[in-house]
């Protein structure tokens, strides 16, 4: 099965700025990739290139097996894109907006009505179909914009800051929708600054910095450097972690007088070796447990560890 997205050596240059610098990656089908990075990292430029809205200087991009740069219109029939602004027609009703988006993406006329109503129901817009978009609140307009992006059931959905300006309840609902879309087989790439929100549904993380891909990996998979272990002491003890730094295969990622997070290379036997060494050093260990890294921690570690562009 071809990947959902394949980007090879994509470079995009604004005058004086290398917005994307030789970006290459593959995004598997059915995944939700969190596209993260500091401001100006190139996230929006990357999404616009993937969507075929901007043409990179070099490189090739395939979405759902279609060369986006050679045949953007065919690729658009199989992808949806939500830009960081809404892009909805204020003077049209919700039904007209969704109907226009559906027919513009090749949904046949006999299926338009049911397609629009199904999408509206999915976004809790069923009772708003007759309302003009200009009369809707920001959150509802955002939902209409998402509806426009998914109305034709695309294989790939690109979302640029989809939750910006939404209240916590609306964000939670949105997270549920993305999880559901992913379960149905849709591939999502979501750019957002709200990492806690991305953490709810992301399966992969793609970190951009200065136009370069700093890291791209599955979030569920163990970190390539080893197992992340949290150590908690029975009582505070100054400089207790100094002994750890000298141990082979152990990296102290963060520490306080009471606890530390370690990255231990190798397998369970290596973790047992570290625990034994701590106990033999007279350190009162109250807890020693492996933990999975959340997106926030992972992002910070990646960005802090990456060389500045």
């Amino acid at each position, binding site marked *: 099965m071809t990947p959902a997205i394949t980007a090879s050596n994509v470079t995009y240059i604004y*005058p004086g700025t290398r917005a994307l610098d030789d970006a290459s990656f593959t995004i598997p089908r059915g995944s939700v990739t969190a596209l993260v990075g500091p401001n100006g990292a190139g996230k929006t430029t990357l999404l616009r290139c993937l969507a075929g809205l901007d043409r990179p*200087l070099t490189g090739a991009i395939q979405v759902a097996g279609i060369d986006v740069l050679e045949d953007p219109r065919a690729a658009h029939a199989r992808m949806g894109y939500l830009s960081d602004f809404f892009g909805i027609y204020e003077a049209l009703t919700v039904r007209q907006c969704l109907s226009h988006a559906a027919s513009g993406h090749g949904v046949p006329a006999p299926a338009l009505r049911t397609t629009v109503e199904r999408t509206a129901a999915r976004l809790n817009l069923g009772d708003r179909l007759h309302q003009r978009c200009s009369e809707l609140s920001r959150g509802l307009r955002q939902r209409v914009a998402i509806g426009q992006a998914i109305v034709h059931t695309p294989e790939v959905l690109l979302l640029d800051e989809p939750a910006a300006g939404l209240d916590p309840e609306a964000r939670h609902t949105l997270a549920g929708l993305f999880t559901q879309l992913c379960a149905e087989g849709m591939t999502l790439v979501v750019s957002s600054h709200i990492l806690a929100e991305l953490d709810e549904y992301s399966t992969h993380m793609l970190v951009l910095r200065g136009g370069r891909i700093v890291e791209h990996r599955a979030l569920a998979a163990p970190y390539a450097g080893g197992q992340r272990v949290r150590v908690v002491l029975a009582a505070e003890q100054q400089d207790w972690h100094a002994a750890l730094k000298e141990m082979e295969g152990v990296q102290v990622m963060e520490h306080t007088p009471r606890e530390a997070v370690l990255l231990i290379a190798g397998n369970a036997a290596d973790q047992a070796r570290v625990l034994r060494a701590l106990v033999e050093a007279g350190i009162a260990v109250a807890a020693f447990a492996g933990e999975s890294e959340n997106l926030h921690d992972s992002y910070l570690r990646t960005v802090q560890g990456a060389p500045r562009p």
Partner: protein
Amino acid sequence: MNPEFKRNLWLEFSLHRLVAAPVVIALVLLLVAAVSKDNPLRNMAQVSGGGFVLAVLFWGAHLAGGSVSTEVSERTWDTQRMSAIGPWTMTWGKLLGAPAFAWYMGLMLLPVFVVCGQVNPGLPALRLALLLVAAAVLLHAVALNFSIYAARKQLRYRGASVLIFVWLLSLVLAPAVRLGDHIGAQMHWWGAAFDAVNFALASTGAFAAWAVLGAYRSMCTALEIRTRPWTLPAFILFSAIWISGLLQGDEPGLFHGPFGVLLCAVAISGAFSYALLLAEPGGASAWQQLRMRLRARNPRQALEAAPVWLVAIATGLLLGIIATFASAGDPATSSILPLAAMLFVVRDAAIFQFFALARQPRRAEATALFYLVVLYGLLPGLLTAVQAQWLAQWVLPRLFSHSDEAMMVMLVQAGIAIAVAWQRWKTVHAPDTEQAVLLSRP
């Protein structure tokens, strides 16, 4: 139904508008009939014809011109670009959809014009009605083209629309007004006589078709669909043949025969070069795209990435060279003239590029235009005023009277301008491109 056309119908039509428009038109025509002391039908024909010009030609062109730029300002254009609607469907959806209400009114006025016009002997009402329709399509397509170019440069079309509008009006109305005085007269084109109305109808129809094709090609570019640049050279040749056909006299002259066609073609190429230099989003990005395709030895993609103003200049230069060789030794023509004229364009394009290739280009077009005013007006004027004509000729050589001299001077000037622009490219942008070339290698 075309989704874009349908969307425009939703926006343009309401029950109120559908009912109000015919009522208002009927009331106006009844008023004209009531106040007309003699020949009310003739007056009704004049009012309905004038109403069509106002509603469809002018207001319709304004609506067609806003069809893309309004989407840019309301930030819906990217949503449209992300759809799977093809460029031709999008073009005609906007061309007929945006001015749909203007056409609705026009389609009520036009039958009145034709029917009432029958009472005037000698007035070819039906053919004039068709001429108005063709003129409307021509104007709408040109306005749509402007709108697409404005969107590509992220300019607000509305600001400039009034000026463009007046220019378009004069362009269309001037021959139309003269046509009114010559109904039944003959037009001479390439030595053959044609009925004036028939000639105007065929010409306007042909140019309307070219304008629609141009709008389609512009739409392709806006939707990131690359095309090979054959349309502009073909249109330049068509226009040159059309214009020079009108200029053929009994006596041999500058515009006589094939040399006249080539001279017209060079002049049109030059005009398009300047217009496109101002209209196209150019600068470093366009050159980087072109250079990468040339480095990859992919001529098809290089042609697709070439800026259209460059195509216009290349067409002009090629035709200028052909004209020079074709007319060598002919005393009736100044064979070097077209080539020398194109060198002015080459120099000016290099000046434009010099400013557009700044690291942070701001107001590049305005700055370039300022220096062109200096080169074409201020400096030669000042030098002439202080009796330094010999120096003035080095700044602005006499193209028509001393073409050979002008050729030499402009070769030097164009060479200097290209060298300066090239130097800026090399120092500011070439390193970025070089690095991209290295990175793209497997």
